[in-house]
């Protein structure tokens, strides 16, 4: 089923040789049902075993294989070559992150940010551990969209604010904070809003909206952040007007 050939231009960076990232071109056989990841794997297996990239599930759920493809952050396993092909397929490491090697970037910083928004259920009292908490389908629906984040980092790669101020908490971590705040089982909303209401929090967002455009799971982090701005403002007002009132 080989139909023709396709040119891959891949950005390479070899940490142990130093220097700046450079582009390398590979011409490989092409089938119309190939995704970009198939091309990278073809190169790895048959042309150049030194090419380095992360991947695992190849079904768009593990979030490992993000890269900038022809200038846009995408999951390489879910991007058909036929949809992006413009003479050549240019693959670069995700923007806005330091490069470890070739297409592998360092996103450890995200995990610290995620931890900083208390990404788990907080309760004063856990109640009866043998019974489920009652939650109606619409309660689940309220946070379902934000809970679909696969931590693929495409939104960070798309966010120019994060690109210039890396301490910004960023789209995915904010969306996940909202996910827990909207969960009827949770009682930790106040602390999360307090965290997000800091210098590195949601107010850095200037609503470019590109995070939601590139999100492969339709999490819409841009909207989540705006909602959080509203909630954080309400919290602030409440505290101004009713200083003594205990917050939820």
């Amino acid at each position: 089923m080989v139909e023709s050939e396709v040119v891959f231009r891949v950005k390479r960076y070899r940490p142990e040789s130093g220097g700046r990232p450079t582009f390398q071109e590979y011409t490989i056989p092409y089938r119309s049902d190939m995704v970009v990841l198939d091309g990278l794997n073809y190169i790895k297996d048959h042309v150049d075993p030194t090419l380095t990239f992360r991947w695992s599930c190849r079904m768009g759920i593990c979030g490992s294989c993000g890269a900038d493809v022809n200038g846009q952050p995408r999951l390489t396993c879910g991007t058909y070559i036929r949809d992006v092909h413009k003479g050549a397929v240019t693959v670069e490491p995700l923007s806005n992150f330091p490069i470890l090697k070739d297409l592998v970037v360092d996103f450890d910083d995200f995990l610290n940010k995620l931890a900083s928004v208390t990404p788990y259920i907080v309760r004063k009292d856990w109640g009866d551990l043998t019974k489920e908490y009652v939650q109606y389908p619409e309660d689940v629906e309220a946070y379902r969209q934000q809970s679909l984040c696969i931590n693929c980092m495409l939104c960070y790669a798309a966010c120019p604010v994060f690109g210039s101020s890396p301490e910004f908490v960023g789209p995915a971590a904010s969306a996940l904070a909202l996910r827990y705040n909207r969960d009827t089982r949770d009682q930790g909303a106040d602390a999360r809003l307090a965290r997000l209401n800091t210098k590195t929090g949601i107010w850095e967002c200037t609503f470019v909206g590109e995070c939601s455009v590139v999100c492969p799971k339709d999490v819409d982090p841009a909207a989540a952040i705006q909602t959080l701005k509203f909630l954080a403002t309400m919290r602030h007002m409440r505290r101004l007007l009713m200083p003594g009132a205990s917050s939820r």
Partner: protein
Amino acid sequence: MTGREYPWKRRPGWWLRNRRYLGFQLREAGGVVCALYGLVLLNMLIQLREGESAYTAFLDLLRTPPVLYLNLVLFALVVWHALTWFMLIGKAQPIQFTRQPLPWKVVFGVNVLLWLGVSGAVVYLIFGGI
């Protein structure tokens, strides 16, 4: 021997990378323009206090073609600023009557209509009809 990370630096022309970034930059530029135009209006008040001749000179300046063209560009930017914000309102603060929040297009449409309405009213008040 272990390697070094290659640090990220944002390129100066990043906002030319796609249309949406460009649109965003223009929207932000539109904001700056609004602020600058405020200064122009402020200046107009100053000229008015200076006396009639200063004020007419200023108005004459506003009527010269370069300034008119500039106004056209600024007007376009302001319109763009307003429209893009209207597009975002539905997302920024989802409005919900039923289980599903209103689609952004509806919120956008309502805002545009309101805007046209208010603008029309202002035109009517000042010029007494078009």
